[in-house]
């Protein structure tokens, strides 16, 4: 039992159960509506995929503020390529390559340039957002109808047994990431690097390679999230993804991952994404103005960080 309570994500697990129960009791007609749940599943997937990538970076004590802009640029590239009559498959591959490339650039600047990840990704946030504006001149067309019917687009954006594929993808990838993180040597390296970089290095962990991988994974997932978004909802605009980096950080932190590195779970992150998505959906359903949701995120973040940090300190001293 004690081991259960020591999990970093115990808080969000309880929180999600609580939220689920609360909404079921309070507003059952709108909550238990399949459309609502499916919608929540989709948006949880979008934020969740983004947040999974961010989790890897935060676990190694870095941060990626550019994920929102990466999400935007990859999504718009994907849509743009398809509009240029390039096959969906090729568009997908190229867009994802762009994502990984951005991750590589981040990694190189942090590792070789020895700059802080906050600065590098802050610059990236501006740069890639600006790149989007400049190359599209503000005018975006969404994914064309023909492309949407493509098998790949359906794989990401369609649904199966009335469940959004994006959500299923989230679960699948989440599971794979969790297994990688906790059952493989690579995952061990990552956690070690985050927990104690000096020790990790002296124990032979290839720290630079692990760091590079983390940054690339982060951008990769940001790109995936964009694909999932656009194959499902083809209409988009130039400010796609603005602000999502902060939301992704909130989801990761509320999910129990500590900024001090080395501790956190993928499950927690996914639940964190679900938590915020569910609350927002319910708030909208109940007619609350969107500003209330934003404030809620802020309060939730403050509460969770306080509890998590104080708990971590207590666990250290008891």
């Amino acid at each position, binding site marked *: 039992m004690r081991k259960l309570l020591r999990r970093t994500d115990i808080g969000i697990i309880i929180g999600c159960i609580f939220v689920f129960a609360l909404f079921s009791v309070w507003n059952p007609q709108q909550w238990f509506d399949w459309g609502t749940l499916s919608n929540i599943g989709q948006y949880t997937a979008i934020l969740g995929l983004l947040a999974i990538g961010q989790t890897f970076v935060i676990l190694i004590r870095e941060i990626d503020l550019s994920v929102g802009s990466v999400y935007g640029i990859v999504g718009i590239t994907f849509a743009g390529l398809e509009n240029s009559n390039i096959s969906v498959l090729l568009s997908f591959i190229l867009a994802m390559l762009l994502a990984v490339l951005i991750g590589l650039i981040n990694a190189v600047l942090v590792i070789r340039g020895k700059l802080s990840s906050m600065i590098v990704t802050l610059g990236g946030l501006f740069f890639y957002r600006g790149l989007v504006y400049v190359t599209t001149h503000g005018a975006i067309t969404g994914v064309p109808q023909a492309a949407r019917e493509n098998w790949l687009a359906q794989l990401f954006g369609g649904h199966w047994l009335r469940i959004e594929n994006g959500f299923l993808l989230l679960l699948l990838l989440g599971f794979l990431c969790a297994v990688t993180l906790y059952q493989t040597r690579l995952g061990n390296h990552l956690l070690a690097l985050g927990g104690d970089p000096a020790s990790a290095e002296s124990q032979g962990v290839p720290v630079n390679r692990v760091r590079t991988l983390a940054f690339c994974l982060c951008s990769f997932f940001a790109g995936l999230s964009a694909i999932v978004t656009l194959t499902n909802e083809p209409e988009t605009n130039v400010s796609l993804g603005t602000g999502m980096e902060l939301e992704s950080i909130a989801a990761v932190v509320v999910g129990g991952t500590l900024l001090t590195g080395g501790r956190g779970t993928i499950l927690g992150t996914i639940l964190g994404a679900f938590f915020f998505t569910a609350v927002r959906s319910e708030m909208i359903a109940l007619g609350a103005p969107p500003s209330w949701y934003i404030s809620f995120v802020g309060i939730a973040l403050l509460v969770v960080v306080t509890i998590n940090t104080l708990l971590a300190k207590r666990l250290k*001293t*008891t």
Partner: protein
Amino acid sequence: MAKTDGTTDSRQPLISIRNVCLSYGNFQALTDVSVDFYQGEMVGLVGDNGAGKTTLIRIISGIIPPTSGEVYFDGERITKFYPKKAIDLGLECIQQTIGICDNLSVARNYFLGREPTKRFFGVPFLDKKKIRDASAKVVHDFGLRDTVDVDDEIALLSGGEKQTFKIARAVTFRNRVIIMDEPTNHLSVRERAHVNELAVQLKQQGLLVIYITHDIFQIHRIADRIVIMENGRKVTDVPRDAMSAEALEEIIRDGGRTPAKGVKSA
């Protein structure tokens, strides 16, 4: 002053540690440590790595509070532990890994926490002239090469120069107690001898000097009393003359299992 016949003074101790324990989570850093320190004596605090010497010093200098136990200064119980309090009570410290801010100049590091000021319309401004002149004088008196400008960033100094700086600072600000944690780190042979001479002088001026070191032979020559710690406990507490340096070294090597011949051993 601890008497050489082995009995301790009946005066009140300046610092008194009683049954102090400190734990970090499951790790017990100090277990039931009790020791008294008197004005005007030099106590050598020795022991192998991880013995708890630095931890004990951190409690005395107010950096961390003990998990349990009591600390008395001048007979009064210390309830709140913070460095400023220790400094105000008259403690000066030379710590091993902390004590210098690399981004500040030598002069600013010197006066950190007690900056001299000149008031302008009631607002305290740094008395830069005084800061510069005072720190320059001290630092050069202590042998720092003349090319070092006190306005230079202290990061530019070598390890030995930084150590000399710490010593100069502690000795000049001396008050009632000086704690030196491995003060001869990074120093040349000649500089080490100088530091030890200083320590003796300070003791003779009536201060309490607590000297942490690995080198039992070195400290045995100058200290009045030797306290040996091992694995967070005090294992030996004897006046210098009660035991030879070799015997004491044997205790350290044995990990505290050899009983000490002499007055007190825990």
